[in-house]
């Protein structure tokens, strides 16, 4: 029933108007966002996705933090943080860190590109609905911004004992964090399905 929007947060029914040009339309009862702008071109999302993919590769290929102490040098990468936990036999914790800092951001980006690149050419990706739902699920477990602050806390705690230098990967993590949040905001579920319907019609 396209004429009605039901608020997902309080179940109040609203008459469906045009999506806003900027900002958002809110539920009159509980103020949950009901509609966001839907006019963004799909190319912006693809560009952001490619950018995020490059940043994610850099973030994993270069050291995150380098530590000099007593003439010895140690460094770690993004995956290294999860592997360090694995080496100490905290496998579930290692899996959680791996999921939230590597696997979820990666699958979030790959799933989006998989959906949007065919869509731009007016085709639909195989298994579109399933991949879309997978995308929403992994997005909830993608914690890049929290990881950034955690790395900052680790740097501060170490700085009293050793000479620590932030690596290239830390800077690309910071950019990745910005890129991912922009990507999430331009690919709201409503926007995604608006693109699907546009390309079909």
């Amino acid at each position: 029933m396209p004429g009605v929007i039901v608020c997902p947060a309080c179940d109040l029914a609203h008459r469906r108007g045009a999506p806003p040009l900027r900002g958002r339309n809110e539920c009159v009862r509980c103020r949950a966002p009901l509609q966001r702008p839907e006019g963004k071109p799909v190319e912006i999302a693809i560009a952001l996705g490619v950018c995020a993919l490059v940043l994610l590769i850099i973030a994993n290929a270069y050291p995150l933090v380098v530590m000099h102490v007593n003439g010895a040098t140690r460094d770690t990468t993004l995956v290294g943080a999860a592997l360090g936990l694995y080496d100490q036999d905290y496998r579930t914790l290692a899996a959680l860190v791996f999921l939230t800092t590597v696997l979820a951001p990666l699958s979030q980006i790959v799933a989006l590109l998989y959906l949007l690149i065919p869509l731009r050419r007016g085709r639909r990706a195989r298994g579109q609905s399933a991949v879309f739902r997978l995308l929403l699920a992994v997005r909830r477990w993608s914690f890049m911004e929290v990881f950034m602050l955690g790395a900052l806390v680790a740097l501060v705690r170490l700085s009293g004992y050793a000479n620590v230098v932030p690596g290239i990967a830390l800077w690309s993590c910071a950019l990745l964090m910005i890129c991912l949040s922009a990507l999430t905001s331009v690919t709201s579920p409503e926007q995604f399905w608006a693109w699907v319907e546009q390309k079909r019609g």
Partner: protein
Amino acid sequence: MSSAATGRSLGLTVCLECRATVRQVHALAHPRCPRCLARLHERKPHSLGITTVLIVSAAVLYVPANLLPVMNTRTFFDDEQDTIMSGVLELLHSGSWPIALLVFIASIVVPLLKILALAVLLYSAWRREPRLRLERTELYRLVEFIGRWSMLDIYAISLLATLVQVQGFANIIVGWGAWAFGAVVVLTMIATRTFDERLLWDGPARG
């Protein structure tokens, strides 16, 4: 607002994944969203029961998460055990109080706030509390928003334990407190998802 038309009263259900509006869901045995094929429910199934179990488990694990050491620092001179709180105090003594405050809020206040807030929300949803609904919905949104930030200390610990492995100088070993803490974060995040916020609005409104 007592006569407000709701999705339920009109026989309409919103798909929580893609936001499509679907008609007469309860007439079908296994309803799925026609657009994104997600399972549809008028309300999340067994929301209050499942959320209660998750919150109780999180509350139980919150105790070892705060009492057990999250990391062990072994150097030439001594063997130091750090809980989350002693880590915060150490940061405070080293003079970086903004970071100490950040860790204190993310690791101690946020998990406790999440557990207490969800307990309050569960109780009011169960009682179908007619007042202060907007405030409760906003509390739920706050819990949803801050949830992930508790992972902060887990990341800091994992980086410290990976970096500080200097043979004969210092080693950092992760403690079981970190495991319990990670479990609290995951359980409360899932509990936030299983709670159906529409239950806060389902009873008759008053005042």
